[in-house]
């Protein structure tokens, strides 16, 4: 019932279940980790989490502000204080480079940047000798969730690249050798009305849901925890999915790709790099590195947000969701049937999502994913468009941000068929664009006006028609993504 902060065991059994790691750290007077927003948007609270699996250690940067401390039981957490302690008497390379490059001004965001850069260095020793351009890309990725309002970032990026080249002392992590009994569900927090359960397998998970029907299911918690940190609500009971074996596996065979609901985006980026490169490119724009290290595909789907970024892709590829209930009943439902209305799904209250299935044939189809937002990185879509060209020469079309749910455009799809030249006729495209305007009645909100969204639906369709037919042609400004 402890986690290890800078190699010191901190007992969390008596800590309220919804206490964030940031709150816990600051209660311990580890005040180097800052609160800038308490919503996972600014990165000032970034810490390094180290997971051990067998011999290997993996380091990740996470937002401590929206991460329940209890979810990290038995994990090693390194804060900026720990970084210095272990590198003493000198500074860690990320710290040294930040000083030398004049990477701090007001200094409030700085510990968060340092931890993002330190996590990158820890996770990617291979970058020490990489080309400058690769280093730069990796640094940009690592700090995609860190906001700085003073420097304009140039010196921070420079410091990041420089730090990769400076040799570092290796860290030691105090190891907790107590193995938890393999078949018992771990209870991290237990007091009075508080419960934080970390089941290890589906059987335990089903039992937990039966025992605590009002408990909230949590995976990365990157959305759920906002109820606590932004609305000051109390959540007393959690069932954490992130250790459930069956939910954290990705498997692939000749017929299909099966993604566990609790697989994080960061893991997906690695696992799908070869088989779904467009989706992986989109993931780089979904949240930030810190968010992707915690957030899961299942969470994105089950949240049922109309502007979720992954459902349009999955809709366009006819993904199937596999559900299970607390009694062990299993069923499958097409994603296109899953969303019933705004924030409503076909899932019963005692059901959970186990995995997402995409057929290999769908994955082989050319696909174009367009995310339109005000800011390129870590922004919520105004419009998310997904387009895929089937073997039959049909186009599948799905959108986010255009309706109360992510939506597949069945009627418009009927209007498009590749002609004998392997192109879509201009007339058909124009007709399809008009059809989209009929089928969709988006809203105006803080991200875009309804009129712009409508225009984008049509224009993204046009863009997809051009780019899918001429695979070598890219007609946008973000060609690298």
């Amino acid at each position: 019932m402890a986690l290890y902060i800078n190699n010191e065991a901190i007992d969390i059994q008596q800590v309220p279940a919804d206490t964030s790691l940031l709150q816990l750290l600051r209660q311990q007077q580890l005040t180097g980790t800052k609160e800038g927003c308490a919503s996972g948007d600014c990165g000032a609270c970034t810490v390094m989490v180290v997971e051990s699996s067998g011999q290997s250690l993996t380091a990740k940067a996470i937002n401590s502000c929206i991460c329940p401390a209890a979810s990290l039981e038995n994990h090693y957490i390194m804060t900026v204080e720990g970084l210095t302690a272990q590198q003493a008497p000198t500074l860690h390379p990320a710290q040294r480079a930040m000083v030398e490059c004049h990477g701090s001004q007001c200094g409030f965001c700085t510990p968060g940047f340092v931890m993002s850069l330190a996590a990158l260095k820890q996770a990617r020793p291979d970058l020490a000798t990489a080309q400058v351009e690769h280093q730069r890309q990796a640094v940009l990725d690592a700090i995609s969730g860190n906001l700085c309002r003073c420097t304009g970032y140039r010196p921070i990026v420079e410091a990041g690249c420089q730090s990769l080249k400076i040799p570092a002392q290796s860290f030691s992590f105090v190891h907790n050798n107590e193995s938890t009994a393999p078949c018992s569900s771990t209870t991290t927090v237990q007091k009075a009305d508080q419960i934080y359960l970390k089941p290890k397998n589906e059987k335990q998970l089903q039992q937990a849901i039966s025992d605590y029907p009002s408990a909230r299911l949590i995976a990365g918690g990157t959305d759920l925890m906002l109820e606590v940190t932004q609305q000051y609500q109390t959540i007393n009971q959690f069932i954490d999915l992130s250790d459930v074996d069956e939910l954290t596996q990705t498997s692939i065979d000749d017929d299909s790709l099966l993604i566990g609901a609790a697989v994080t985006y960061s893991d997906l980026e690695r696992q799908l790099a070869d088989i779904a490169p467009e989706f992986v490119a989109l993931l780089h724009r979904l949240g930030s590195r810190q968010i992707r290290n915690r957030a899961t595909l299942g969470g994105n789907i089950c949240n049922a947000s109309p502007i979720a970024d992954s459902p349009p892709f999955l809709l366009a590829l006819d993904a199937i969701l596999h559900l299970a209930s607390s009694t062990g009943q299993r069923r499958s439902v097409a994603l296109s049937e899953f969303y019933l209305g705004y924030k409503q799904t076909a899932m019963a209250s005692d059901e959970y999502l186990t995995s997402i299935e995409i057929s290999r044939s769908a994955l082989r189809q050319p696909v174009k994913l367009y995310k339109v937002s005000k800011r390129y990185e870590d922004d919520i879509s105004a419009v998310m468009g997904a387009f895929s060209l089937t073997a039959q020469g049909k186009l599948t079309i799905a959108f986010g941000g255009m309706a109360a749910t992510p939506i597949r455009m069945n009627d418009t799809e009927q209007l498009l068929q590749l002609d004998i030249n392997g192109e879509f006729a201009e007339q058909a495209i124009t007709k399809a664009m008009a059809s989209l305007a009929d089928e969709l009645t988006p809203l105006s909100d803080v991200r875009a006006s309804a009129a712009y969204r409508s225009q984008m639906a049509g224009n993204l369709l046009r863009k997809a028609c051009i780019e899918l037919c001429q695979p070598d042609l890219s007609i946008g400004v973000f060609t690298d993504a």
Partner: protein
Amino acid sequence: MRKLVESEITNRNSINGVGSSLQHESAIKHVTGRAQYIDDLPQSNQLLHVATGKSSQAHAKITAINLDAVRKAPGVVDVIVQADIPGHVDVGPVYGGDPLLAGDTVVFVGQPIFAVAATSFEAAQRAVRLANIDYQPLPPILTIDDALNAESFVLPPHQHLQGDPDAAIDAAPHQIEGEIYVRGQEHFYLEGQISQAWPNEDGGIHVISSTQHPTEIQKLVAEVLALPLHQVVAEVRRMGGGFGGKESQAAPLACMAALFASRQQRPVRYRMPRQDDMIQTGKRHDFKNRWRAGFNDDGRLLGVDMLLAGKCGCSPDLSEGIVDRAMFHASNAYSFNSARVVGVRCKTNTVSNTAFRGFGGPKGMMAAETLMDDVARALGKDPLDVRLINLYQPGQDITPYGQQVSQHVLPDLMRKLADDADYRSRRQSITEFNQQSPFVKKGLALTPVQFGISFTAKHLNQAGALLHIYTDGTMLISHGGTEMGQGLYTKIQQIVATAFDVPVSMVKVSSTRTDKVPNTSPTAASSGTDLNGMAALDACNQIKKRLAQFAAGHFNIADYELQYHKGSISAGDQQMSFAEFIQLAYMNRISLAASGFYRTPKIHYDKKTGQGQPFFYYANGAAVAEVCIDVLTGEYKVERVDILHDVGKSLNPAIDIGQIEGGFVQGMGWLTTEELLWDDQGQILSNSPANYKIPTAFDVPYQFNVALYPQDNKVDTIHLSKAVGEPPLMLGIAVWAALRDAISSTTDYRFSPRLDTPATPERVYWALQQCADYQHQQEAS
């Protein structure tokens, strides 16, 4: 006799004084997390936390308040309403209008109505949500247009008049009209507003605040508590960013914390969570600018008539100076020849807008820069040429407010930048690219900044400093400026070290405290170093004068023979370490403390006539930006930016470049991705970083070249340097102008579309549609 401390100077070579790129004085503390911000102060069981209950209405009478549930909520210790304030209720900085807690009327959504002190931050936040407040709604004024129609102003309009602009415009060969809506900006300092207060044994208060204006905190806390000023000490060690947002708007937090500290005789901390900060504190003003101008065939302006309407919100706050500065900079770097510039201060039922880096200047400049591009396109000229011929230069050097521009930096600076950045050849290749690229268009723009340095409120142009030299030769310098990341403490440290030619490690800058240096001006208007650096130097010079006189008598030399050199002194043929010399001076009873003072010379401005010389000098710079846009979506990318900026003789090149880069990116954010939005009930929609997007590292151009223009200031500033805090923000205008250039390329640069700011992908897209409509009309006719 007491034994004097031994000197511990080891490294006499690393002076790191003025002109060197010394690292920020807190750099190591920043990177190790040891730099302490207010929320990092140790928490005792005694500490109380504050939250406020907010108005849900933009404009309403409060008919009933029921706080029973709030009082009974877990952890709540004290609850107050306006009637519980013992002294002044109003905490407005200049004209008032900002009650600490609302009385019977609320005037914006989010206005604090009551406040709670509780045993934890969360308990306070949960408690304030339990209030029952009944309102009788009143008609709100929410927009600039509403305010203009209703003539709802926080202060009367003001005008600059030069010549007879109406006649000049009418007589000109060409006339043009235009309008732009320039949205405001959320400061998004990473450290939100915060204060902590402690009661002391005398019934007084010590308040530590994240503020740019400690003296005003002292004054307002004293007024709210009905205490004399000497009973209140305000202290600031550092801010996690300020950008103007902590000039006037830090005060309510300090006052509230002090009020509860006084009532409960316990330490009290008031930290706003991000969402409260984004709802309850003022922002950069929205402006609606309109103009009519006349010009000749070369694009030279002959007359300009301009209206600048700022959205001030519910009270004046600092809007007098802000709209004035918008007016001062409405011509930016260009001679209008004859001009009428009118500024109006719109009163709306929204949070009172406040200072933000540039202080009105950026909004005025947007009018001038829009006008330059429009004139160029009307004549089919390169906008750079139109800018160059309109620049202030000998023969056309009088501003609409009567100040003569005397240092003509920009004509050379802009030509040099255009050369260094290959503007002309890139212009040509971009035009060619655009002719062949249907879906992606490129844009290029070079825009200048000419920013007036001095507070336009004359009395603020003063500063004090207090220098202590201890008997080991180390020094403690206190001054009235605050450190918000801009490197002021570092520069002060360098200035003092250079005065005695000792290593910077011998100089420590103390936290800013009103009991050390009184009656300070806010650290604002880019003036922190200009004013406080001069005050610190004055303190150094006073002690140096005493030491010279002492040395003259002691060593039997002339005054001027006392020389400081790398941690040592020489007096005639005598040589000793600086510390030894200081010990000698102490033994001979020479005072080793001094209070320095500075006031800016020459400046004056007559508000009645709208004429004068409000600025001691101008800081200058220019930027070239290249962008590409996606014609189908309006999305864009900034590909390359080159900046050449005038900081005079740089006190610290690394810090100055940091200010330039950071200011540029902040300005770019203001004009591109950062969009403040309210709904039609006056509720702010952009209330969190999830829906208000400041730039990330990805948004910074891949090619980002920044250079300092090597020329000393020609007026007598601290080591001939120039202020650098605000001016670079307006270099971001180049990005906006380049976006508009790219959009305009779809009409072969004949049509100049309206592009309000921020130029989000959506606004870029609609501007492209304006161009498409123009093309259709051209083809039809």
